């Protein structure tokens, strides 16, 4: 039973014998590096970079559902990219705008 399922995965059109598997799998490394950057101070984050990461994630999530073969691995890695990008953007925005509020009061 399990062997049949494993075989089905192994031979899948977006499975580990194809580029459709390895391209998204490698991209997870980039998202993981992003997650490591959650501890970076907000001053060191870049708006253009995080906007690019977020936009890429959103657009590619859509792209991965209209290509053949439909690629859920690619879909999930791009959802993660959009998620980490949005989180980093919110950290930086919160830092920049709460600091301004503190300075304005002085």
């Amino acid at each position, binding site marked *: 039973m399990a062997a049949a399922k494993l075989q089905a995965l192994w031979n899948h059109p977006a499975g580990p014998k194809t580029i459709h598997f390895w391209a998204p799998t490698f991209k997870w490394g980039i998202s993981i590096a992003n997650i490591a950057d959650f501890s970076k101070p907000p001053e060191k984050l870049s708006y253009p*970079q995080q906007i690019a990461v977020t936009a890429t994630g959103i*657009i590619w999530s859509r792209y991965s559902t209209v290509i053949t073969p439909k690629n859920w691995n690619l879909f999930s890695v791009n959802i993660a990219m959009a998620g980490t990008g949005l989180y980093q953007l919110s950290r930086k925005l919160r830092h920049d705008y709460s600091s301004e509020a503190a300075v304005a009061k002085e």
Partner: protein
Amino acid sequence: MKTLMELLNSFWNSPVGPKTAHFWGPAVNWGIPIATVVDTRKPAETINGRMTTVMCVYSALYMRFAWMVQPRNIHLLICHASNETLQLYQLSRWASAHGAEERGSK
């Protein structure tokens, strides 16, 4: 001979044209090579060797992906071929800077 209007129309209505994710996926990816062009003007000491190496593997994988995906995406292929070239150039700059560093300390 197609008129300009006919060409523009066939582009606009293309199954891989600007009304589709097949166009915008690669379009947003151009941010990476463009950011890299900006980085080539910066001193070689600012280059992150690990990230550049990751980018070299990443673009090589996605060049193959662009070729094998249905529909075949030449726009994406060109985007990643450009990035691959730029990243390899940056890697050579980083390697020279590090080689010089070692020679200097001997």
